[in-house]
């Protein structure tokens, strides 16, 4: 029983939990900033720049404005980060899932709301008018990303459910296992619009450049973060990076699960002993997942960041509820009629 508890604690604190999210999240956002710079013909900051930013912010003094509600001001970033890390526990790493029997796809849809809600409540608690405007824009961004995300998830569930015969399959491990068995979903015709729609949702959900009306540093002085300084601000920036990791790894698990199967065959081909094979597969899974996440960040976040200008809030809403939702709806209807 103790060993079991230690294992689960290790899951929470080390592997898919804090350490993994902390390192890969900040690395991904470092790579993202470097790629954006390179696309603007700039040298760009070193890859470890987010680490420096985080530790510098930890060293700075934290000022709590007199108008702010002190406990909410301090606890909101921590709750947001904890919620995000717990979300990461449910996203499988190809063959390995930390906690497969706790949450399914719809729950993950709602767990994505917790970090957004924590930043809104934290920003609102400071009482600054910039935070008020930022909060209103953040909520509209969350609202606009919700519809396409829902359509994509329902399409994937229907597709996998129909294939595995149960009609409906909400659990992520099931989806990945199905893809490892017979090829990743990106190969299927009906799933391609869903994958494209999901790629378009990633920058909106993480609030990166073209859709960051909520934290527009030029217009409303970093929106909800206007009054945050020091360690709480560092935690918010960290949870922003970890959100990039969770969105991209969600994409990998929903549409590129087949690669996990490839890794398994590779390990079987090497013919190692049971224990070593298990460890090797997990190691390979993690490396491949990280590489795929890097590619996805490059495509979905950095490229879009370098090429477009910031949208107004009602353009974001209109863009998501017309273009991206139409794409997702197409794939849902295709999946519905069994394509």
């Amino acid at each position, binding site marked *: 029983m103790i060993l079991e508890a230690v294992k689960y604690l290790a899951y929470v604190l080390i592997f898919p939990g804090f350490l993994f999210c902390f390192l890969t999240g900040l690395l991904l956002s470092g790579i993202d900033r470097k*790629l954006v*710079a*390179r*696309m*603007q*013909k*700039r*040298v*760009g900051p070193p890859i470890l720049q987010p680490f420096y930013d985080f530790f510098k912010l930890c060293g700075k003094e934290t000022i709590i404005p007199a108008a702010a509600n002190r406990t909410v001001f301090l606890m909101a970033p921590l709750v947001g980060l904890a919620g995000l890390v717990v979300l990461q526990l449910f996203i499988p790493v190809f063959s390995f899932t930390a906690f497969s029997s706790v949450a399914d796809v719809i729950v993950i849809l709602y767990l994505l709301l917790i970090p957004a809600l924590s930043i809104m409540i934290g920003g609102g608690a400071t009482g600054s008018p910039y935070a008020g405007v930022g909060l209103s824009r953040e909520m509209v961004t969350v609202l606009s990303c919700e519809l396409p995300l829902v359509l994509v998830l329902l399409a994937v569930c229907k597709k996998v459910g129909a294939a595995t015969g149960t009609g409906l399959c909400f659990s992520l491990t099931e989806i990945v296992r199905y893809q490892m068995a017979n090829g990743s979903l990106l190969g299927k015709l009906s799933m391609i619009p869903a994958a494209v729609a999901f790629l378009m949702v990633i920058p909106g959900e993480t609030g990166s450049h073209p859709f960051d009306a909520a934290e527009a540093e030029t217009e409303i002085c970093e929106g909800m973060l206007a009054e945050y300084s020091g360690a709480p601000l560092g935690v918010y920036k960290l949870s922003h990076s970890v959100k990039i990791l969770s969105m991209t790894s969600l994409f990998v698990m929903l549409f590129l699960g087949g690669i996990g199967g490839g890794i398994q065959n590779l390990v079987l081909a090497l013919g190692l002993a049971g224990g070593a094979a298990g460890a090797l597969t997990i190691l390979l899974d993690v490396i491949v997942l990280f590489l795929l996440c890097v590619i996805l960040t490059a495509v979905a976040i950095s*490229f879009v960041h*370098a*090429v*477009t200008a910031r949208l107004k809030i009602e353009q974001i809403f209109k863009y998501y509820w017309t273009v991206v939702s139409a794409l997702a709806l197409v794939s849902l209807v295709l999946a519905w009629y069994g394509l």
Partner: protein
Amino acid sequence: MDFPFVKEAISQLFSKPSCAMYPAVESIAAPRYRGRIAFDPTKCINCLMCERVCCGGAITHTVEKTEEGDKITRSFNLGCCTFCAHCMDFCNHGAIQLTQDYHMIATKEEDLIVSGTFIKKPPVKKAVPPKPAAPAAPAAPVGADAPGGPKETAAPAEAPKPRDDGKPVQDPAKCVYCTICARKCPAGALTVDRAAKTWTLDEDVCVGCGTCAAACPKNAIIM
């Protein structure tokens, strides 16, 4: 819905960044860049022209009486300077040069002060010969020859000799006492009285800049 920079973004991703890697690669300013001021005290004659034309009021000087002459220190406060190089243009003796050095970072006030001191020897006072008797007034008692004719002006006195310490000398013949030179004198060394037709020079104040000579319409002043 067009994306203008897609091609550039992709091509730039694989091309070399156009960064002048500054701290590593030293970069020199343009040849005629107006940077830090270099002051050559030896050339300076303390004619105060630079102070007059400096719009930022950045140039100040202090005079200190010492036995072998005035110890003048001129200081340029780069913190007040607009780097317009007027002082360089107006300095006839080229004492002020604006160099290409743009590294003007300072943590203390003094780092931005460029100064130079020089000793300005007082004008060598020759043993002043006793004032020669007033030039022989034309012998008035000599009967006025040809009184009816135009009054013979005094025989044109020969042009006065320029003084050796560079101070202006007036040629009474040509001077019409129009007082332009007095007004032009930067140091206010000349006083000309139209009525009394007097032209006096205050040697101590005069710096021998030559403005009066240049300004005199009748070229009555010789340096």
